[in-house]
């Protein structure tokens, strides 16, 4: 779930009928000072400076501080903008007026998976420790279309000892909470606390909001860069991967970096390439149990295109210091596994892979998949082994450990992909496909045409001694997987003059090192 910062959440709530404290976000001490100056306009007024980070208990780590003078606010902001919370550097602070609290309430919107409907949890008294007071909380069921159950809302607010006017305001707040959540398609929206001020107003003192990842595309107004929940800001590599996923919806692709260095006592950092969430988790358990550190989590599943698997592999291999590449999913995949094998084989060749690689491609067409990997392995320096559904993750993890041990500590150095030399010749002709292009060397077309006609399944044929594309250009462009297979087969057969080049935007720049 994509998380928003407190100040972003407050803006959404303000747009939905809530009162929020006066104030603004600041990303430099100077900005913080200018906000503080605006707010410290009356005698006795005070501001609060808060780090904007996805964590609870900010006060306890020095992430919340009060100031009566702009310079004090500057000091707080300067200190806080140097902080790091978990893996997150603090990039923003919120400076707002301090509010005079009379009473506090807890108000939380969530999705009740058992009821398959939204729910609002309400409790008197806010602040930290709400989890411990769960028994006093009231659960207000909501209808997805009509909102919170009116009777349950009344029942909850009428027992708080509030005047009818204030109770009615609280009713509205609960309804507004639902509307706000619905409008931005929140997965959760917690106001803690909702403060009743001494002058009788309900004000949002703090809030946490997460947006449904799958709905982010419908909400450009939220400016969410990556609809994913990370425990760190997205790394450059994760940004590259996310763009790949967004550009190709054939199957699932998920990439997250977990570690950039091997843990102490670990046998080394491993590039992990899974397929399917459940099978990937089990395979990761196997590789962790074999005493390796997993550099990344990657999942290509749901019948992905060969190009997607290729790009995933390229991204995994953009991580330095890997001692090996480990691929394993559920093991009995419904998808046609040979497409994945072609994608991997292409990446391995282009990067001239030289670290131990174990790939389990169990499921449909597993024999063909393993055969593709084995044939490619003969062209490369690395030991590359393919396995099937009958091979358990623990077994292949053990085999992987053997190969790594035999590899005498070779560590992977990311590199840009190689392309055949003919691509640079003037005789090379390019045919565009989705995210890349097919290169054909017209100078040797006569020698390769038979191979290309067969291996491309008739996508490219000979017409008057020239390569000719048999489909309309836009349709041909979607045949990237078939052409990828043709490209790998020509590579294995040692046939020059045909090559599919696929782009991974931004990746080469990240790697820096070129051949």
């Amino acid at each position, binding site marked *: 779930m994509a998380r928003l910062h407190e100040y972003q959440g407050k803006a959404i709530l303000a747009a939905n009928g809530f009162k929020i404290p006066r104030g603004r976000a600041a990303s430099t001490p100077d900005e913080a000072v200018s906000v503080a100056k605006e707010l410290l306009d009356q005698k006795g007024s005070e501001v609060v400076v808060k780090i904007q980070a996805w964590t609870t208990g900010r006060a306890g780590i020095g992430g919340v501080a009060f100031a009566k003078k702009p310079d004090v606010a500057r000091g707080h902001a300067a200190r806080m903008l140097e902080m790091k919370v978990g893996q997150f550097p603090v990039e923003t602070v919120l400076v707002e007026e301090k509010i005079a609290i009379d009473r506090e309430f807890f108000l939380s919107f969530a*999705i009740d*998976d058992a009821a*398959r409907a939204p729910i609002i949890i309400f409790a008197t008294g806010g602040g930290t420790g709400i989890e411990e007071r769960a028994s006093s909380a009231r659960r207000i069921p909501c209808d997805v279309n009509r909102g919170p159950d009116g009777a349950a809302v009344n029942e909850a607010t009428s027992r708080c000892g509030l005047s009818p006017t204030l109770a009615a305001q609280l009713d509205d707040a609960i309804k507004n909470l639902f509307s706000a959540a619905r409008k931005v*398609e929140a997965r959760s929206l917690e106001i803690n606390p909702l403060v009743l001020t001494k002058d009788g107003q309900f004000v949002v003192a703090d809030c946490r909001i997460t947006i449904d990842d799958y709905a982010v595309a419908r909400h450009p107004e939220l400016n969410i860069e990556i609809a994913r929940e990370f*425990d760190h800001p997205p790394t450059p590599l994760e940004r590259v991967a996310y763009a790949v996923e967004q550009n190709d919806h054939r199957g699932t692709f998920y990439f997250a970096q977990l570690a950039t260095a091997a843990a102490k006592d670990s046998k080394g950092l491993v590039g992990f390439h899974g397929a399917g969430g*459940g099978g990937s988790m089990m395979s*990761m358990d196997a590789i962790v149990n074999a005493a390796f550190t997993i550099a990344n989590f990657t999942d290509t599943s749901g019948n992905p295109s060969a190009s997607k698997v290729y790009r995933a592999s390229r991204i995994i291999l953009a991580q330095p210091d890997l001692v090996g590449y480990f691929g394993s999913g559920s093991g009995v995949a419904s998808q046609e596994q040979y497409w994945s094998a072609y994608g991997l084989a292409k990446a391995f060749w282009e990067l001239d892979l030289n670290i131990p690689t174990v790939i389990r491609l169990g499921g449909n067409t597993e024999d063909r998949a393993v055969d593709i990997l084995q044939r490619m392995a003969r062209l490369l320096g690395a030991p590359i082994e393919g396995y099937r559904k009958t091979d358990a993750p623990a077994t292949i993890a053990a085999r992987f450990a053997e190969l790594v041990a035999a590899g005498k500590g070779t560590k992977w150095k990311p590199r840009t992909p190689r392309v055949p030399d003919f691509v640079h010749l003037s005789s090379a002709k390019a045919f565009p496909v989705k995210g890349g292009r097919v290169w054909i060397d017209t100078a040797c077309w006569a020698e390769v045409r038979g191979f290309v006609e067969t291996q491309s399944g008739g996508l490219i044929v000979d017409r008057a001694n020239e390569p000719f594309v048999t489909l309309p250009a836009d349709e041909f462009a979607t045949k990237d997987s078939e052409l990828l297979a043709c490209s790998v087969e020509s590579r294995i057969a040692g046939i020059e003059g045909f090559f599919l080049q696929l782009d991974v935007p931004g990746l080469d720049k990240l790697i820096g090192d070129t051949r």
Partner: protein
Amino acid sequence: MAILIDETKRVLVQGITGREGRARTRLMREYGTKVVAGVTPGKAGQSVLGVPVFDMPQDAVKALGQIDISVLFVPAAGVKDAAISAIEAGIKLTVLVPDRVPVWDAMEIAAAAKANGAMFVGPNTLGVLSPGKAVVGMIGGRAESARQWFKPGIPKGVGVISRSGGMASSTGYYLGQAGVRISTIAHIGGDAVLGIRIPDAAIMFEGDPFTEAIVIFGEIGSSQEEELAQLIRDRKVTKPVIAYIGGKAAREGTRFSHAGAIIEGGRGTHAGKVKALREAGATVVDAFGELPGAVVEILKRMKGQSLMSEADKNAVWNTAVTRIEPNRVAVRGYDIAELMGRVSFGAAVYLILTSELPSPAVARLMDAILVSSIDHGATPPSALAARTTASTGASLSAAVAAGIISINRHHGGAIEDCARQLKVIADRATRESISIEEAAAHTLASMREAGERMSGFGHRVHTKDPRTVRLFELAREAGVDGVHMKAVRAVEKSFADVKKALPINVDGAIGAILADLGLNPATFNGIFMIARTPGLIAQVIEEQTREKPMRRIDPVRHGYDGPAPRTMTKLE
């Protein structure tokens, strides 16, 4: 039996004209799923793999009658509207395959399902598969693999519920390798809001008499496993539960691609789930590899019928007709020694073709059908072909085979053709809400215009076929009077109305009766072959013993010198 899906369920595919829709329709049909219709807005009138395409689910329901399940292969953004249109068309189960369906859309689908008394599976599900019966979704990927991987739950099986798609197949496969039969595999989906959840599926398996135990591939996150533990404690689930919970190594807050596998606020931890299930009395294995063994162990202890014999385990393909073991032959599950002397041949034919024994009255009807077609003299093409072949010196088998070969569309085929045409008339009456007589008159009129003829009426020899009268008498006794019988009478009346005396012939009568009995029309010509074979043998033997080789056989000018007319009264 099974839960959610079997071979009798009528299935609609939404998004059938797309890449996935087309590919999965092939899988489903090849595996045995009754895919009756497809939907893609704007593509009504097309067909995909022979399946008619409609604009909307309600159009399909209107044209084809009740549809039990709709399975969706549409882009995530279109899932909500597509699912609600299926639910509002009265389809009681929708299977939402797509990934990335917004959670608010899923909640709206849930509200619509609740309001209409419907259920849904998913979103983000690979579907549901009942081994040997049918599949909705994409479990197995191809029919051939699905048949090889998952062992049918006959006589009984274990139910599999998985929160992971890939592991649904894996669990099913490894159980099969360990000799465990499966009633149904349900991948319930990986999203936050799901239609059928683990507790719901467990209750269904509890109620399925053919499921002996419930196998769970659980995951961290949500409270489904804990709710299942509560059902076990409340004795609402009493069948053995064997579970593996994935995600032990996952850190809190880390997510592994599917939204389901996330621990939120300390809820749904690995340790919590394992503890809850174990305390309730379920078996929870620590490693996935131990799951099949644990299931086998429990089935052995309960003397379950879900375990395969060694021979079945080693099988590379299966037949559902007859099981042969040392000293035992079982036809469709019945010991042949028990059948012998107790059921007539007609009843046995019915059994082997439909997999069920007929009632005594239906058995009499089957016998009558077989007797009615045992021979029709030396003039039919099959008898002539058999005799001609015999006269060349061919063996009995070759000569009879020649006779059988000539039983085709125009000889014997009228049984099947007539049954299909009667179905068209009956469907038309339902679709246009008119009487069967009107439907018959309209259909015959349009057939006349198109120059087509109605099969099963009129005879080159008989004006009142003696066999027809008797068959209808027996059908009445057996209570066989369905739409085909009604249609056949309507057609006869319609011919009479236009002053065309075309009485129902024996083929028409048999076609109507067999179709009303629910037999597969593809077997009708075969039933005729079974009936006619004794006649052909008699014709061939006579040819071989009484006639000269290579004689010229006159098809018309031949006499009869057998026993004089006689009755059965003396025998009875």
